[in-house]
């Protein structure tokens, strides 16, 4: 049985269907990328796995538990944690409070101090800024807080929605290195990206999403070598 299994889901916003009969799976310890253009349904898929949206058909299961009807807080308790698109920090709270709130689930709440140290080791910059309001940080620092907040939750499966969005090239490299580090420490990662080259090169496998459907799937290497991907996503 797969670690995370998404089976034949349909997802709607009101009357508008955005995801069509989509299936995918993630195994424990893997890094899996989901790539696809704007509006392909990547964020919708992550929101559905996180419980912010519920599929009208199909199943989502995690470590054998059906979670497609569960609330977001319950899903966090199971160990799936999402770093949402656009960072979504608590702007008027301090960096430290943002991180502390990241640990508000029963698996993490005993370990908050230890986890904060870990986050500060990963992002020394944040420890200098811990008492600043999150809204006063630069874009790159905000993304560090967003990822740090995800780590605080001690995820079994960490989902990141376009962590490189809006960052300068140097910072992008930094963020991807960090994601790789997190994976190397044993966390399973589901990474949504438009930066196809970077994300596939640190992943084991990938899915290509087009118009709410899986258009292609395979190992990261086969996808990187695929002619369709080369022309459509890598601009080669």
């Amino acid at each position: 049985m797969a670690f995370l299994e998404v089976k034949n889901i349909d997802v709607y916003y009101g009357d508008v269907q955005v995801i069509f009969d989509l299936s995918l799976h993630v195994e424990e310890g893997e890094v899996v990328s989901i790539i696809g253009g704007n509006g392909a349904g990547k964020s919708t898929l992550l929101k559905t796995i996180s419980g912010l949206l519920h599929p009208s058909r199909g199943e989502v299961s995690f470590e054998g538990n059906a979670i497609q009807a569960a609330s977001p807080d319950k899903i966090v308790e199971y160990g799936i944690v999402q770093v949402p698109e656009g960072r979504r920090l608590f702007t008027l709270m301090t960096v430290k409070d943002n991180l502390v709130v990241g640990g508000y689930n029963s698996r993490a709440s005993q370990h908050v101090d230890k986890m904060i140290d870990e986050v500060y080791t990963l992002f020394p910059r944040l420890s200098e800024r811990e008492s600043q309001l999150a809204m006063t940080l630069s874009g790159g620092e905000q993304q560090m807080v967003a990822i740090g907040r995800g780590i605080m939750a001690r995820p079994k499966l960490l989902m990141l929605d376009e962590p490189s969005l809006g960052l300068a090239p140097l910072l992008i490299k930094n963020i991807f290195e960090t994601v790789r580090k997190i994976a190397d420490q044993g966390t399973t990662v589901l990474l949504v990206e438009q930066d196809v080259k970077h994300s596939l090169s640190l992943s084991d496998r990938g899915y290509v999403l087009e118009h709410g459907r899986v258009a292609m799937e395979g190992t990261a290497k086969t996808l990187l070598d695929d002619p369709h991907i080369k022309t459509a996503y890598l601009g080669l």
Partner: protein
Amino acid sequence: MNYIIEGLINGILMGSIYGLTALGLTIIFGVLKVINFAHGSLLMVGMYVAYWAVSLSGLHPYLTLVVVVPVMYLFGYYLQDIVIKPIFKAEREVREPITVIIVTTGVWYILDNLTLLVFGPQYRSIQDNPLRGKMLEFGEMLISVPKLWGFFAAIITAGSVYWFLQKTRTGRAIRATSLDRDAASLMGIKQYRVYNIAFGIGTATAGIAGVTLVPFYNVFPTVGVLFDIKGFIIVVLGGLGSIGGAILGGIIIGLIESVGPQFMAATWTEAIVYGLFLLVLFVKPSGLFGVRYDW
């Protein structure tokens, strides 16, 4: 000169009590993003609970806080949990759900009319309580003792709520939810429980306001309406969601009401209040002391 000072002091005292009556409105709005039209009724219920607690026990009005605060907290908590939450869930997609506002209006009507049914229309006031009619004299100046108590109650309540939100685990969860409810639930925060707690706290502060009012104010089923409109004005002046802003907004209204009549006909002071309200809406809709963002 003396009466100007006396007017200023009484304005600040009464104004801070106004601020206290509006505190719950701003707390509930800050978290749920809903104007609670039942807020005046919650204040009315708080006044009745305080009235009966004082009348039946014969205790000092402020001692009844021990009963009023938990009773009102639970009342607000379960009112949100049982009556309002289901509507919220049905309108999950909407940031400022209008049907929730309609439901709070329904709660207002039901509470006011139930009270009328059970306790009748008569005005009630506590006859022998140690604060009633007490005045402090400073030379020629008279300061109302129950309002002075109310002032301290308002400052302590606002300070405690602020401290709670800043420094406690639950307080941080409430602030996070008020800033971004979806992001908060992605952290594992139980969104609807936070709403219940915020509604409970807001209702408890209405209860405290009730306790400060009963020593010098009549209790009757529609008493909340008098404070409702003032509450909305105060909360807009101070900045929706701002705790300090509610108290300061209240004090501004109190000062206009108490100092104004020494210079003009009393009806003009009301015009000034509404004028200021409109001016703030036009010029700085986030309120005089609010941040452009939510909390």
